């Protein structure tokens, strides 16, 4: 049921992006600006996923249950997927808009660094064998990375010169249709991320109980 609603919602958002929305005036290439309906929500979902992983890290450190550690890791994985998507769509848009796939804009750089931070998280997790230590070290790393994420996404692009607009919507350059479509698309993308999260957690849970079951059998012998 939820899946069907989500599917229909995304169909609606996608068709609205291409059929209903007017070309965005004020952009160098107004037709291609429709991509922001997909580009911005990806970045939003990535940031939300990283915050969620930090929340589960706090819960893990407080309760010490390995399911919370798995939730935190799953959120990081999903955040990475959407961060990469945001970067790819952004790069395509930049080629249309600024004339280059990559122009070293502070936001482009900060997105890459964000991906590096959380890719390092995966490397860190893979390098520790002992489960409890892996869980607490990765929880601390996620929390330590959170201020870096906030500085990279919200603060540093504003103290350095950027081509990237951060107030296009609030200045009313795009019009209400775009604001509505962006919000709808963000809701849809968040729904997809939540769905991915539940699938990922079902897998981790199954693996976790399978391992526990095997250990239990070994103990019985």
């Amino acid at each position, binding site marked *: 049921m939820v899946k069907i609603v989500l599917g229909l919602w995304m169909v609606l958002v996608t068709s609205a992006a291409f059929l209903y929305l007017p070309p965005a005036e004020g952009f160098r290439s107004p037709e291609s600006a429709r991509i922001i309906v997909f580009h911005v929500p990806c970045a939003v979902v990535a940031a939300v996923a990283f915050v969620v992983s930090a929340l589960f890290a706090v819960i893990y450190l407080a309760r010490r249950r390995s399911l919370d550690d798995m939730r935190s890791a799953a959120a990081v994985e999903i955040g990475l997927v959407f961060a990469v998507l945001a970067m790819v769509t952004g790069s395509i848009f930049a080629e249309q808009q600024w004339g280059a796939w990559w122009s070293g804009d502070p936001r482009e750089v900060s997105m890459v660094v964000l991906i590096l931070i959380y890719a390092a998280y995966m490397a*860190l997790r893979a390098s520790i064998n002992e489960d409890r230590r892996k869980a*607490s*070290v990765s929880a601390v*790393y996620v929390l*330590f990375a959170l*201020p*870096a994420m906030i500085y990279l996404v919200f603060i540093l692009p504003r*103290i350095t010169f950027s081509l990237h607009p951060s107030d296009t919507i609030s200045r009313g350059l795009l019009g209400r249709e775009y604001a509505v479509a962006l919000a709808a698309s963000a809701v849809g993308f968040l729904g997809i991320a939540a769905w991915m999260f539940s699938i990922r957690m079902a897998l981790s849970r199954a693996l976790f109980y399978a391992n526990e079951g095997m250990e239990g059998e070994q103990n019985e012998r």
Partner: protein
Amino acid sequence: MKDVTCELRSRRALNAVMLFAVTSLTAVVFCVDRGWPDYVAAALLWLVIYFSAVSGLSGSFAHEEDSRTADALRLAALPEAVCAGKVLFNLALLLCVVIVLALLGIVMLGIDIANWGRFAVVLLAGSVGLASSSALLGAMVSKSGVRTLLFPIIAFPISLPLLIAAIKAVESALGSGGVVENYAAVRVLISYSGILLVLSLVFFRFVWE
């Protein structure tokens, strides 16, 4: 208790890091002509500082795991005290390196400092941030088999906001191209360093068990 942590280390680390820093700065001086703009000088200065920090500070906990003193510290001292001691040790080491590098930078790179107070504050704040983040991250990777490889991987992205702000802030303290007013970068740098310091002290307990 803090002294225990500091005393355990010999002068080896200092010698090695100092040589590394001077060598890399010399390499920079040989390869590039003088008279570069301020933003290049600021970036080069911080890159040398950063890589010296990574090479010198990553081993500080690994050394204690190897020589089995870590277990004694776990028994003898509060985790916060161990962490504070480690941060202070890292900071002392880093400040020696930073002072030497800054002097060499002035002499060899010919950088021209317009605002000495800001230059000093920025170097100090950056060192505090690097020292505290490498204390926590060093403890995280100390038990891993691939720690020498892993430490730069996890330290670089986390330190990058600090480096960017520090480079911008140093640039604003240099004066050959007219003083660039950039208080925002200084504020960002100081706040980020403070956050790193506090978080290191708070979270150290969880990786030190």
